[in-house]
């Protein structure tokens, strides 16, 4: 469950003067934003699928995991450039997502929430088993152009280049996807599929194809998170924590709202880091879940979604 970006939290208790405390605080926020970015990417990926098909996709993390290992395999065994390898991995991710939808999710007989959770957990376990069988459980090194310790210092604050890249890709994906869902014809079709799939079919939307496409896009977004986490911690369980936190963020944001998921992800990341820095480093990983339960007690459909009222 432990994963690399926790080590990035360099905000220790070395400074005693007022300025030092301030720097510590800002450093923690920066680390929080960095952690939040990976959560945001995973959260976005899950929201996309949930928006269209109401499937809480527990396999999201492992889909990203296998893509990262695929990229690593390309880079270590074949002599190709990094950009080509990443492009191929993204293609792989999209095909994988579409394939899973086509081959497994679509075949489900009784698509209720519990069934979908069980199926996606099943897929997750299959991929996890496959990856750890193929590559073993030990830590691997991902030949990434930016190393995990590359960074620069602004003022007295250390910023890792990888984190900046993660932040940019998270925000970029959020904006692009938001615009996509809001203004493009395809995005509209995806929304229609979620709201009423029969009606969508009647007006001529190929809902099956829409689902496949959704899974492809979502897998691609998730894979970005995977590729960006891989340089710091490359082992079969590396995606568990980001996936669960991303899911938590998506739930907190309301499960259907893209900006909601991203905002919630940053909130979780920052609160987690501040909590780790000031209150207790030991409970850092679980504080997110406590927040989730508290938020859900007050707003059962998350912070940024209209409350869903069941009709009889």
């Amino acid at each position: 469950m432990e994963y690399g970006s926790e080590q990035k939290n360099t905000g220790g208790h070395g400074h005693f003067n007022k300025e030092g405390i301030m720097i510590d605080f800002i450093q923690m926020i920066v680390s929080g934003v960095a952690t939040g970015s990976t959560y945001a990417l995973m959260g976005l990926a899950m929201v996309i699928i949930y928006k269209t098909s109401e499937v809480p996709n527990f396999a999201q993390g492992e889909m990203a995991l296998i893509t990262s290992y695929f990229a690593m395999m390309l880079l270590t065994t074949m002599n190709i450039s990094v950009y080509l390898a990443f492009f191929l991995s993204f293609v792989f991710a999209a095909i994988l997502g579409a394939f899973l939808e086509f081959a497994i999710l679509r075949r489900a007989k009784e698509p209720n929430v519990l069934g979908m959770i069980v199926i996606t957990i099943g897929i997750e376990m299959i991929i996890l088993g496959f990856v750890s069988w193929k590559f073993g459980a030990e830590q691997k090194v991902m030949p990434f152009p930016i190393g995990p310790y590359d960074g620069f210092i602004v003022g007295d604050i250390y910023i890792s280049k990888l984190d900046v890249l993660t932040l940019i890709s998270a925000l970029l994906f959020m904006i692009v996807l938001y615009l996509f869902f809001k203004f493009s014809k395809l995005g509209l079709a995806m929304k229609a599929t979620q709201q009423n799939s029969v009606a969508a079919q009647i007006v001529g939307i190929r809902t099956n194809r829409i689902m496949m496409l959704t899974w492809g896009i979502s897998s691609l977004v998730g894979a970005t998170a995977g590729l960006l986490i891989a340089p710091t911690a490359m082992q079969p369980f590396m995606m568990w924590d980001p996936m669960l936190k991303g899911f938590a963020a998506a739930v907190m944001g309301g499960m259907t709202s893209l900006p909601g998921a991203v905002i919630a992800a940053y909130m979780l990341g920052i609160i987690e880091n501040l909590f780790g820095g000031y209150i207790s480093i030991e409970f850092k990983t679980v504080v997110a879940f406590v927040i989730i339960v508290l938020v859900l007690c007050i707003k059962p459909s998350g912070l940024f979604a209209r409350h869903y009222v069941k009709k009889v």
Partner: protein
Amino acid sequence: MDMKRDYYEDVQLITSPVVFFWFALLLLLLYLFPFFVDNYYIYVANYIAINIIVATGLNLLVGYTGQISLGHAGFFAIGAYGTTVLMVKLSVPFLIALPSAALIAAGFGFLLGLPALRLEGPYLAIATLGFGLTITQVIGRIELFGGREGIHVPDINIGSWIIDTDKEFYFLLITLTIFLLLFMRNLIKTRMGRAFIAIRDADIAAETMGVNIVFYKTLAFAISAFYAGIAGGMYAFVLKFIEPEIFTLLMSILFLAMVVVGGLGSMMGSITGAALLCWLDLKLRNILDIPYVGEWLKSLSENWFSLTGVSNIQYIVFGSIMVGIMLFEPLGIYGIWIRTKKYWRTWPF
């Protein structure tokens, strides 16, 4: 088929002398079984019985009441730690420690049931999942509970009877299991059980009919947690040593898998599901020792995969079973059984 004419016929356990005969035979076999087999199989039976208890409790929540829990390892941990700590640190006798620990678990179940009243689907899944993870983390930090290093579990003693072999433990456990299963079976046949099922099928309709949703939903969580607590307490004595790392998310997932694979909303389902998955779990731990398949897997691993990671095949097997069951037989093993029975009853047609 078998028509029920009055209420008593629906609730009675033994419907005919034939059923009585099979029931008595089953009990007899269960109690005589340890005298004929190796110690290892008694250990396997204990392991399975414990998981049957959890699966039965979880089935009440998932299968009968229609809630989702991905945090049952948390209740399991509370039961295990509660029993052990009460016995070791406070020297409470076993017969009081086990139910108290289970009641503590039930209390936590009630607490988790409160937010669950307003949640459903993925929201409930993440809330319960978070609960399970939090419990393990919290237990790992408390010094009284042995912290990360874990804690040793003493032998059970009831009066002057000290239980230190698997065989003696089996008799205690099997009695407990039969009792809990009968209790659950009767509970489901009563007014309460029907209320649970009504909530699962249509909660708003159930509320209109006068079912107190707040009471029954939290009760389902509490009873389910109670069962997990009892099972956890017993599991501590099987392991002899417990540490927080045992009670992972994977364990919660496996519990859920047992219920789903066996069949939602059926007692036989929880029993068969737990038995199947536990047996597979134990078998697949040393997968290379399985005849024929082991050899083949070994060469396959050497050529294409890694030999160090070969034990991870069990994830692939469990995952495939979960996906396969959901795709082809959503009612699980119980569904297969029902279909087979129908097929043979009406055979030539």
